[in-house]
């Protein structure tokens, strides 16, 4: 049975452990023993990244003249830490949730999210030119963030049934249902408008369809068609402000302008900050661009510029490596799952985080147009942090319950 020399274990071996684990799971001390079985090395990496985020927020709040955090920004890093604490608790709770519960909640959660998105469209409040926030009993929530998790779980649930019934690489028609599951919330988010989140939703959804086995004979032509459709999307789908960003990006790529003026100011300043960091960085709290507010949004989407300036190329590569580690570990975890639900939930959640990271980093270093997209674990912003940690909670849950087989028939 050993067909996987690379990962060092086989599904067969994993299955042999299942019986004893299941017995433990039934016991009273199950929760504690499950906590003990969590992959603490991975959780440590996540914690380290979030603490780095807090340290970077402290740096953006630092007042180099008075040698203390400036009073009106001092709350940033504290808030980040508090939010991380809350999100950490949530992640552990999600991690301990059995797959059966996830599967049962998948479609109701999806429907609720769609309803919330429709409500946002109807009654949401505006912020920064987009309608993204919904006031539920005094708490402002951003349903588009829920959508990331909801689509992932719903798709995983969908394929769990679809693949288990066919017991084979499914046919093309199976994936149409999946596409519908993705496109309904994606269209609603796009309408807000929130280009960044839409992209993330569609991309991670498509990755799940890819892992679910959509034939390459369909994938390749669709990619080709997608590339061919770019000009049409640019002309007819994008809002003027989105088009402007694309223009700015293109002129920056082609003209290599460092004029520091106009629309490309933000990206120019970001590039200067990153470049000025050099190999080993200017040192913590020593960045020129970072300490003197030259990069707009440096505590949210552009926080990478602070890391890159103060810790240099070494710091940037360390950060990229941390993300790579999380991704590779998640893929390995997916391969160890017995259920399609677990595999695809990990793939969806991991690729959501991966797309966040890739889009954010590419945007900051000038490889992609500026779309609002936070850097997972590090950027300031409660909702985004909560979403990312919840995604990881799903991954951990699927990992913890990798041997559950989930014999569900039918959609509900």
């Amino acid at each position, binding site marked *: 049975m050993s067909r996987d020399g690379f990962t060092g274990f086989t599904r067969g071996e994993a299955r042999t452990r299942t019986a004893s684990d299941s017995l433990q799971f039934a016991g009273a001390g199950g929760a504690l023993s499950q906590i003990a079985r969590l992959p603490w090395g991975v959780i440590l990496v996540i914690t380290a990244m979030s603490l780095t985020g807090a340290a970077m927020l402290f740096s953006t709040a630092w007042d180099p003249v008075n040698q203390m955090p400036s009073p009106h920004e001092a709350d940033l890093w504290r808030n980040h830490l508090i939010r991380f604490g809350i999100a950490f608790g949530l992640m552990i709770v999600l991690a301990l949730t059995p797959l059966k519960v996830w599967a049962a909640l998948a479609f109701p959660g999806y429907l609720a999210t769609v309803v919330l998105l429709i409500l946002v469209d109807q009654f949401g409040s505006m912020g920064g030119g987009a309608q993204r926030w919904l006031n539920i009993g005094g708490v402002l929530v951003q349903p588009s963030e829920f959508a990331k998790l909801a689509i992932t779980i719903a798709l995983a649930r969908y394929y769990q049934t679809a693949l288990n019934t*066919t017991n084979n690489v499914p046919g093309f028609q199976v994936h149409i249902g999946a596409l519908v599951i993705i496109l309904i919330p994606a269209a609603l988010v796009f309408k807000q408008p929130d280009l960044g989140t839409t992209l993330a939703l569609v991309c991670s959804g498509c990755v799940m369809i890819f892992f679910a086995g959509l034939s390459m004979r369909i994938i390749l032509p669709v990619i080709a068609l997608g590339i061919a459709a770019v000009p049409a999307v640019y002309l007819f789908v994008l809002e003027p402000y989105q088009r402007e960003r694309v223009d700015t990006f293109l002129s920056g790529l082609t003209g290599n302008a460092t004029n520091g003026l106009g629309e490309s100011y933000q990206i120019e300043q970001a590039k*200067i900050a*990153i470049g*000025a*960091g050099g*190999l080993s960085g200017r040192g913590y709290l020593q960045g*020129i661009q970072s300490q*003197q507010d030259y990069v707009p949004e440096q505590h949210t989407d552009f926080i990478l510029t602070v890391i890159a300036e103060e810790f240099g190329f070494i710091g*940037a590569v360390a950060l990229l490596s941390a993300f790579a580690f999380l991704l590779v570990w998640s893929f390995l975890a997916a391969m160890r799952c017995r259920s399609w639900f677990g595999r695809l939930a990990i793939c969806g959640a991991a690729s959501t985080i991966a797309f966040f990271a890739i889009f954010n980093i590419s945007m900051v270093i000038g490889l992609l147009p500026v779309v609002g997209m936070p850097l997972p674990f590090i950027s300031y912003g409660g909702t985004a942090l909560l979403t990312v940690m919840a995604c990881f909670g799903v991954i951990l849950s699927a990992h913890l319950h990798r041997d559950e087989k989930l014999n569900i028939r039918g959609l509900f």
Partner: protein
Amino acid sequence: MSRKNKNADEMFDRRMFLAAGAGGLVWAGLVARFFQLQFLDAERYQGLAEANHVKLVMAPPERGQILDRFGRPLASQRQAGRVSVIPEQMKNPADVLNRISDLISLPEARRERLLEDIRNARRRNAAFLPVIVAQELTFEEFSRMQVHAVEMEGVDVQMASTRSYPRGRDFGHVLGYVARASGEDLDRLTTGLAPEDQRIYQEMFRHPDMRTGRQGMERFAEDWLRGRPGRRRVVANAHGRPLWELTQDPKQAAVPGKDLYITIDAELQRIAIDRFEGESGAAVVIDIENGDVLAMVSTPAFDPNGFVNGISGSDYALLRDDPRSPLYPRAHGGVYPPGSTFKMVVATAALEAGVIKPEDHIRCPGHYRFGNRTWHCWKRPGHGAMNMHNAIKQSCDVYFYEIARRAGVEKIAEVSRKFGFGHTWVLGMTGARGGLVPDPAWKQKARGEPWFEGETLNFGIGQGQLGTTPLQLALMTARIAATGAPIRPRMIGLGPNDEDDALLDEPLDPAIMERMKAGMFGVTSEGGGTAYRSGDLGLGGPRLAGKTGTAQVRRITTAERATGVRGGDAIARELRDHALFVAYAPADNPKYAISVIVEHGEGGSRTAAPVARDILAAAIRMNSGRAPSFSRRADNTATPETGDPA
């Protein structure tokens, strides 16, 4: 396990590796981009970052001092405590201002205005620029604020450079004052400059420490005093807020303005202004040997210190509406009829024209008939037979009616100009006026009427249209006392050249001047002289020679003349005549010439002459005309440099 299922598992694993490979490619691409930015292009971006945050900010020049002839400071830069707040650092500005007002005086109205300024600064996104709360702190206030500033957010206590006039009102009319440059000031200062220089000027004058001369010598010598602004290298953040200083390039340092020496003796000026004892009037003292103006007094005066940081509307209204006009520069801008002090000019004109000899007698019956009108002598019973010497000594009007008529208006006007009348003597001040020397051409042009010979009679006793300033009268006296030698009046000892102020060198016959001096000596030192009592300087020897005068404020009506009402308590103070006195001393070896006018002082001999006597005595006692501390050589070699900023 079915084969089909195994197929799906294999497919999943295969795709996993495919995705991992794609992810690895993306990862490598991102690392490559970081490598490009942070390794290959690092130097360029480091340069851009440096260029980004190092800013050259304006360093205002230190304004030059103004010093008197002996180097006493009249206008200088003083370090004074200043409290400012930085709006962006305050959560609750009203609260902060209340706490400041516990420590230093800060009226409610001022606090409200500051709150508005702070709101405006926030609206303009300039909340990092300091808003000045209070300046000119006393030492106690400054130390109190320094102790407590750390407890308050956004409060900055520092020493700032301000213009100060240590002698206050003594020099208000001469020096004028400085103020924050207004839009008008900027327009005036930048006309004719290159656009780039205009921008530098605008930036320079926006600096809170920067002032420009608004009036007087401060304005006249603006370029000399201002200096050149420099540039300081500072680190500034993206919002333009300076964070800290870098090492400075000495070539970029601000060049301070040059010191300006004036010829006035500050002590004599103070004694002169005090001697008026609150009366309105003016006095000008000139050094006969070289034309240096030693005192230039106009009372009442204002304190220029009140203008430096912007005078409040109510304070300014108080000065402006004061019936005694403290803002009015009487000494060089006040135009008065000279009255009898003008008689030496008329006598000179008559002698030059040859229409009378000094020994010729003219009988004074107390009045003079010309045409169908009667002109009166100030002495109603008349002086009897008068020669020139006695006519000057006793100021006989009838004698001067007669010789004025004989000499004619044109001749008197010509001689007047030789003495400096009708010319605007700027001497580096603002507000100077030239007065008026009337003649037929002027009257035809201004009034469209021919000259009436009757007006020549008024001209002869210094009344009518004739208008003179105390400065001109002092110059006239100086020329007589110098026995007709040329005089170059000046008040700028070491400073910018004043091209307007010409040499007063029209030829005057020394013999005639000697006669005038004798007449003036008679006034103060011979029996019957109109100012006999004021001739002794009280210095145990030297005497002064002078001439009294009365300037009519209103025409005396026939009815009043008949009833003998000519002044005193019988008429309102502001309608009483001005008292004038011109003099020089010592009489035997003239050094100082003076003119004094006491407004509504009525009699030259009674009110103006004692003032003139005491000022002259002070000048002699203190030797005000001794060599000044600025060297003559420096004056001659000083090139007119302008304060253009580089």
